[in-house]
């Protein structure tokens, strides 16, 4: 009875509302059952080769994903060295997860490890080239590994650099202001694809002979600078929302410029723009797929590469592969989105009426 009362009130309160409710039910009816049918009920779950998935009426070909899972995650990383990637992932997760939980202990140490030590540990572990470790060239890296390396580097570099650029753009010193504006407007006006092409193809032409930079590293730098420009504008939006009196009051009690920014202005400004910052992170995470055009195989690129494998040429192979990639991207992006909602709620309690 409660259910019927609730439905009357919320779903069928007027003719218009009832029509919308019925329309929504129709949309669900025509979309969800076929999707579930494809992904679960008529999907192929077991098999060792393409023969399992040859039935033209069958749904998703999950054995294709299972057989290629290693490539999707690690690319062409040598099988005997994969433990190094796993260890890097594990260390990263162990450092990031407690850093994201506000009540977790030893925050300071945690952040110092995450931002100060972890990047170097990760480089040594992944690239090797140290006594005791076999060097693994970045051309062998691929899949989710590359996606995460590009995205995490972009995120970690773009936030602090973006903050500096945003402060620079509002600086009273003309030289700093002009440089910041020039940097931001240049990188924002150039498509990321162009940036990656320049980094990969043109930059080596300008570098002195005998001096070479790794292709992946060049792309990392390109992505990081590109996203810093976007981040700068997001942060600037937050800075503009803070009344001038805040900085004046801080300067008047004797705080220096950096103390004023670090203790008074930025904590308030960044809080205002958490949705924008996370939006930029999510955009960046998905834009990592563009490294494909300079011959680096991220998760999506690796899925595409495995599609041409004749051993797995099956009717539903491409769809299954793309859906798999989409699910992985969705999980990461949705996680970031939920975390930002959580942080906003947390920061908005306690003060302000």
């Amino acid at each position: 009875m409660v259910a019927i009362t609730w439905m009357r009130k919320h779903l069928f309160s007027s003719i218009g509302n009832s029509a919308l409710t019925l329309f929504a039910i129709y949309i669900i009816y025509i979309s969800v059952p076929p999707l579930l049918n494809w992904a679960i009920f008529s999907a192929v779950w077991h098999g060792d080769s393409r023969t399992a998935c040859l039935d033209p009426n069958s749904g998703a070909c999950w054995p294709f994903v299972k057989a290629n899972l290693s490539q999707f995650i690690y690319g062409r990383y040598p099988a005997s060295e994969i433990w190094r990637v796993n260890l890097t992932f594990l260390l990263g997760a162990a450092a990031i997860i407690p850093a994201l939980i506000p009540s977790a202990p030893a925050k300071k140490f945690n952040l110092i490890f995450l931002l100060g030590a972890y990047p170097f540990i990760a480089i040594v572990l992944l690239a090797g080239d140290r006594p005791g470790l076999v060097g693994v060239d970045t051309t062998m890296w691929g899949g989710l590994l590359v996606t995460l390396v590009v995205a995490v580097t972009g995120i970690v570099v773009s936030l602090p650099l973006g903050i500096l650029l945003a402060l620079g753009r509002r600086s009273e010193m003309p030289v700093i202001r002009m440089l910041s504006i020039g940097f931001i407007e240049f990188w924002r006006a150039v498509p990321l694809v162009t940036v990656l092409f320049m980094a990969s193809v043109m930059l080596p032409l300008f570098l002195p002979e005998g001096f070479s930079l790794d292709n992946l590293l060049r792309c990392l730098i390109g992505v990081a600078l590109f996203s810093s420009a976007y981040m700068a504008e997001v942060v600037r939006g937050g800075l503009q929302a803070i009344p001038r009196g805040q900085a004046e009051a801080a300067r008047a009690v004797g705080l220096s410029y950096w103390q004023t920014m670090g203790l008074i202005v930025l904590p308030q400004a960044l809080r205002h723009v958490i949705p924008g910052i996370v939006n930029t992170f999510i955009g960046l995470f998905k834009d990592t797929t563009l490294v494909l055009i300079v011959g680096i195989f991220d998760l999506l690129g690796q899925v595409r590469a495995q599609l041409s494998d004749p051993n797995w040429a099956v009717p539903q192979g491409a769809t299954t592969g793309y859906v798999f990639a989409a699910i992985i991207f969705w999980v990461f992006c949705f996680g970031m989105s939920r975390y930002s909602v959580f942080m906003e709620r947390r920061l908005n309690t306690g003060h302000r009426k």
Partner: protein
Amino acid sequence: MSDDKKLMIGIEHVHKWYDDFHVLKDINLTVREGDRIVIAGPSGSGKSTLIRCINRLEAHQEGKIIVDGVELTEDLKRIDAVRREVGMVFQQFNLFPHMTVLDNCTLAPIWVRKMPKAEADELAMKFLERVKIPEQAMKFPGQLSGGQQQRVAIARALCMTPKIMLFDEPTSALDPEMIKEVLDVMVELAEDGMTMVCVTHEMGFARQVADRVVFMDQGEIVEEAEPEVFFNAPKSERTKAFLAQIL
């Protein structure tokens, strides 16, 4: 006026322009230790600009401003040295909304004076008691009334144990019933011998507390006199017109 007291603020032939607009025209003002100066005048007369020049929230373009023996120039070290000794209270309070009242007060002692936190807390509580709101120490500014916020702002400035206090229209943003609680605190401060420069429209306060009232109009100091003379026998016609309007 006794000249044997220490010179705290010396302003000599100061001019300031916003682009073509001449905001301050040949300002001369001397403030000695313990002086209580009230600056009055119609809005747009440059009185807020003048007081903001004293701790260099605004820069002057010509003339000299010397505060506590330090001449204000572009030199950031000098500016910081002056700001450490000069407290300021703003019309809009400008408390830091993301910090508790206590943290608002201890911020500068901890970061600028490098005071240990426990000592800073104790100092802050002392001044919060003096402005009569120690029980609000753990609240955030947004939870306080305007009058309480302004008293916190005064306590925050006092925590740096300044030699000079600047008040920039401290009661103009307050509801009438809260003006008194802020003025009471300011009167007490004056009675304790604090050197004060106040921009205010509270003529009762000026009469009660000021050693001198400075009247500004259109960027100039029109008249400077002791309160009895200023209110009862102003010389300038502009002063008379102003007083006729507000009294």
